[in-house]
């Protein structure tokens, strides 16, 4: 009989950066920091063009669906278009 031990690894800023940049083509995570529980990212992407603040956050939240509030306790983010980031 085997037992699958539920090992949880804390998320790192690098993991978030990689996953965001992979999920939103052309996006750039210009800042990522924090510990395993409170993380902060700044994202610049064309994909935010024409989207409300809430829809921008939803786009990012979808990448981490099911993990926010759980494994990723808190993710603070700034979502800007290249124009806004200038």
């Amino acid at each position, binding site marked *: 009989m085997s037992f699958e031990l539920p090992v949880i690894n804390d998320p790192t800023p690098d993991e978030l950066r990689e996953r965001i940049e992979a999920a939103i083509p052309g996006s750039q995570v210009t800042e990522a920091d924090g510990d395993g529980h409170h993380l902060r990212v700044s994202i610049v992407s064309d994909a935010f063009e024409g989207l409300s*603040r*809430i829809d921008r*956050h939803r786009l990012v939240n979808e990448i981490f669906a099911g993990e*926010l*509030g759980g494994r990723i306790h*808190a*993710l*603070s*983010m700034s979502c800007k278009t290249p124009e806004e980031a200038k």
Partner: protein
Amino acid sequence: MTEETAENPLREAIAGAIAEKDVLLFMKGTPEAPMCGFSARTVAALEAHQAAFFAVDVLPDPRIRQELSAISNWPTIPQLFVKGELVGGCDIITEMADTGELAELLGVEKPAEAAPDPAAPVQAPPLQIDNLSGE
């Protein structure tokens, strides 16, 4: 999810409060005693605007948070609703406070100083959703 919406009094109570209250904040803790930094910052932004708001503490019953997120499609707390619409969580509210969009949305003057006034009065008592869990 096994419960139907029609037989989910808690979800109905949450949806009803969102529809009924002009400015409603779901938070961890109360405006007087926030239990999370993000909730505290959101309360501070509202209080800096001297905006009247109602608050619901999601901590006493985990089902409040579960049902709220199901309604709002937003995973985290706090969540601010204005006139029945989700405005956002702490990041969005603090950004909007800085740009003046929050003042416009709330129909108040943008506060002169960005720093929240810790002595600002809380203008409405926390709204309690009690005894509605259908047990």
